[in-house]
């Protein structure tokens, strides 16, 4: 990260290779759209380059990247609504070509349930449970207290359970 801040292009490539796939996956879960995830991944890494002077040397890179991705998704969400799952729950082509053990019915239900969660609760659940960020790290990046983030996540889990009744363990 230090070398990248100083303008080293190879350091940027290493950063991108390491983090871009997970950031993109997070954005797809957050927006429910593959095309939006691609666009927002580009926007996220352009932001990383433009705003690298604001990175606090010695801080963790991953929470910072997810904060940028979340901010970009929020901004895009305010300006335009993402494509949503149809009533028939058609998934993008690339997902339908997956391994046979995948439960597409469940994935459709999960995607639809995630889309129905309020934005703040969806972010808290995805960042904590699926991206492995601590509540403290999320709180630091979104400018809230740790307990406020926990409350958001708790409410989100409750709603998700309700939406996925019969599926949620």
């Amino acid at each position, binding site marked *: 990260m230090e070398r990248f*801040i*100083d*303008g080293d*292009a190879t350091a*940027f*490539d290493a950063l*991108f290779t390491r983090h*871009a*796939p997970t950031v*993109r*996956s*997070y954005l*797809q*879960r957050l927006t*429910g759209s*593959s095309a939006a*995830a*691609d666009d927002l*991944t*580009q*926007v*996220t*890494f*352009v*932001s*990383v*380059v*433009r*705003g*690298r*002077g*604001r*990175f*606090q040397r010695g801080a963790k890179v991953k929470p*910072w990247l997810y*904060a*940028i991705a979340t*901010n*970009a998704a929020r*901004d895009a969400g305010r300006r335009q609504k993402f494509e949503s799952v149809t009533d028939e729950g058609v998934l*993008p082509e*690339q*997902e339908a070509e*997956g391994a046979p053990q*995948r*439960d597409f019915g*469940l*994935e459709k*239900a*999960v*995607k639809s349930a*995630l889309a129905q969660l309020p934005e703040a609760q969806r972010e808290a659940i995805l960042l904590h449970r*699926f991206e492995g960020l601590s509540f403290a790290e999320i709180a*630091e*990046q979104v*400018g809230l207290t740790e307990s406020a983030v926990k409350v958001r996540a708790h409410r989100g889990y409750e709603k998700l359970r309700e939406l*996925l009744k019969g*599926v*949620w*363990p």
Partner: protein
Amino acid sequence: MTPEQKLENAVRNVGGASKDMSALAAAARAELSANPKARAWWVDGLMVLGLNVVMGITAAKMAEWNDEQHHSAMTKYAIGIAWFVFMALASVLWLKPGSAKQRWALGVGFIAVSFATIGALSGFDPGGAFMDGVWCAIAECKVAIIPVALVVALSTRFAAQTSHLLIGTFAAASGGAVALHFHCPNGTASHVLVFHVLPALVLAALAIAVRAMWKPKSFVP
């Protein structure tokens, strides 16, 4: 596979993957080659500080000095210095990345200096029309408007929160507050509160509203 693992997998699979990750890096690589040198956040802060100092000193030099507002010469200068200290800290630190706690502390600082100003007033009422008060508010806004515009413009370089704009605008308004502190002859609390402090809050609300309409150049916190 347990139901929990099934659900975890389902959520992970909703993430998917891009067909060409490398293509997603192209715009960032072009940006990096165009701007290989990173701009430190405090450089912008020093720019705001410089402008605030210039505007504050220019305004202070242009108007006639009055002592009627103050309880004593000591409180007059002590509070003038407090406004300068607040201006110096807030002009730079409103941009500092990281926790919002420091910005809220600066907000408390602004309130404290405002209350100290009111607490040290002489109570002298020169009379005059309501419009005399309005002129004070207009003067403060005139001194602050360019620095506030700079604060809003700089805030588009990152994902600015309300607290960033609030403190940035208070810093910009403090130049005008210093000028009014030394030049306004009115020593009543209602006048200072309505025509010296309130304009800073109005400017902050305007800055937040304008910034909300502006698309940011970067989403870094």
